[in-house]
């Protein structure tokens, strides 16, 4: 059963044209010219309850605009959005009662209040029953290791602490759906990992549906089996991350350590890129030869001490997709 249904969703912005120079300034005063920007251009998708979906795209692709429409902050120019049985921008107050949102770049908490005071206020805002509130607070504060800074004003928190507090704040009222917008932005490796762990936990243990936007491919790799990619306002891809990798991932690499030196180590189907000091590196493509075939071929001819297969990284794949417009043809 789907929790998010989006049909032909569009959002256009009017951006006023500015002319430069003396005459330009006069023209700005006398005429108002607009360019129409299609931030989101006819997108369709559904998300089922309990899914954890990554929503990717370069800056200015239309990601944030989509999220703002899904959360009810923006009114679509056209199309249909139904989330959790409601139309977000029409039934804002009822709708937001059942969702949570974390925007990595800004906080939901009150700047000059201690964290716990903000959480208490949220309890009143969402009318969380006291018992449920205590339970959730207990669970989240221990999982996110928040005890040490519960009484610190939000303005004095480190970025990692603030993010954890924000994530906790977004979940106290047991939302069905959580929007995470760059929840790991600017954090160190350990802090990122802690947040990912937690996100995975609430998705699997509590069944909270999560829509994650991020520029961090490690987030995507660890958390999302399904990704959607948007660029220039159009949904370019919606499917498994692995499929994307299989289709557009760069070449795979096989690194082989031979047991003894061989003058000639080339094999059909793979390109030898390095060979030095008993160690050879081959590049090969999934479509041409599989890793096991390649290993089989090599081991019949040579004595091999050790080997490893390196998958192309997702970061590189996504970068190539954005830069080279690999998906634009088949959207």
């Amino acid at each position, binding site marked *: 059963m789907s929790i998010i249904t989006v049909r032909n969703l569009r959002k256009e*912005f009017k951006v006023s044209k500015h002319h430069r120079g003396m005459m330009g300034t006069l023209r700005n005063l006398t005429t108002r010219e607009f360019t129409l920007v299609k931030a989101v251009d006819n997108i369709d998708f559904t998300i089922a309850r309990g899914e954890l979906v990554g929503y990717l795209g370069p800056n200015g692709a239309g990601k944030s605009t989509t999220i703002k429409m899904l959360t009810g902050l923006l*009114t679509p120019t056209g199309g249909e959005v139904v989330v959790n049985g409601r139309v977000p921008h029409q039934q804002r107050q009822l709708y937001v009662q059942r969702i949570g949102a974390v925007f990595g*770049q800004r906080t939901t908490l009150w700047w000059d209040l201690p964290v716990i005071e903000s959480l208490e206020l949220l309890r009143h*805002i969402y009318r969380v029953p006291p018992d449920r509130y205590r339970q959730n607070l207990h669970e989240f504060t221990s999982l996110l290791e928040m005890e040490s800074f519960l009484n610190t004003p939000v303005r004095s928190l480190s970025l990692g602490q603030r993010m954890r507090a924000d994530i906790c704040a977004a979940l106290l009222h047991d939302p069905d759906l959580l929007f995470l917008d760059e929840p790991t932005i600017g954090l160190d490796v350990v802090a990122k990992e802690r947040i990912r762990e937690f996100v995975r936990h609430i998705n699997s243990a509590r069944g909270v549906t999560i829509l994650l936007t991020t520029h961090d491919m490690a987030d995507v790799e660890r958390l999302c089996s399904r990704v959607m990619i948007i660029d220039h306002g159009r949904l370019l891809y919606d499917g498994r991350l692995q499929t994307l990798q299989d289709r557009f991932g760069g070449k795979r690499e096989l690194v082989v350590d031979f047991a003894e030196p061989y003058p000639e180590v080339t094999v059909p189907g793979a390109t030898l890129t390095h060979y030095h000091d008993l160690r050879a590196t081959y590049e090969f493509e999934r479509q041409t030869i599989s890793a096991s075939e390649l290993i089989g071929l090599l081991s019949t001819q040579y004595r091999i001490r050790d080997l490893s297969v390196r998958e192309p990284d997702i970061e590189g794949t996504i970068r190539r997709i954005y830069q080279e417009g690999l998906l634009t043809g088949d959207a």
Partner: protein
Amino acid sequence: MTFHSTTGRIARCPSQYLYPTMRLFWEFTVRSFQRHLTYRAAAVAGLVTNFFFGILRVSVLLAILGEQESIEGYGRAELFTYMALTQAIITYLSLFGWYDLMNAVHSGEIATDLLKPMGFVSFWLARDVGRAAVALLLRGVVIMALYSLFFDMVHPTSVAQVTAVAVSLILALLISFGFRFLLNLSAFWSPNARGIGRFGFTISWFFSGFLMPLAFFPAWVQQIAYLTPFPYALNVIVEIYTGQLTGPALWQTLCIQLLWGLLLFTLAHVTLRTAVKRLVILGG
């Protein structure tokens, strides 16, 4: 477990049986009150400026009065009272400008407020009530007390009159809030709405009777002024306090205050709905 010890610090509402909405309103008001209480140094500085600014204003009025006993019901004592009251009310009603909502719209902070299941206008009103309460205590009461020491003033003579002043002050805050909220909503239409804001506040000084008691103006100006909500936020408080408004006229005035308050509050709701539809949140 840390949270058990901290829940005891939550502000207790006077009754356990109030509706959750009232409770939420109360929680916001209390926190806003506490927050504004912390700016003590600024409060003292403001107080000193406020005190001397009032003396400057009243000397102009005394010059106008000259050798006459009184003008339009305002003698020396009434003028001092007028000056003290209007000075005391400046921060209570944010007469010199209030741009918090405008700033929240321009910075995009408003997004996180809109994502919470609460009445947006009520939420801002609750915060404003907390702010105004601090202003009334730290500024209003202190200024009135200070001026009473130095000048001959007219004070309410009965409990009923004191009550009428209190009610009138509360209704004035509602009117003032509605006006300020609406003025701030212009931020949704213009990325540089401060100019609109300043214009609005200047207009309000004139028509509210802050520049000079409205009684000093020609009848036609007064007639125009009383078609606007502004005199009901300031001028009438002075007239009730000094005893110029009594009996049926007083009741009528309080009713009109209430009507203006409700009207502006409703208008704020309706305009907000239109405003949110054209919301463009920048960044993020």
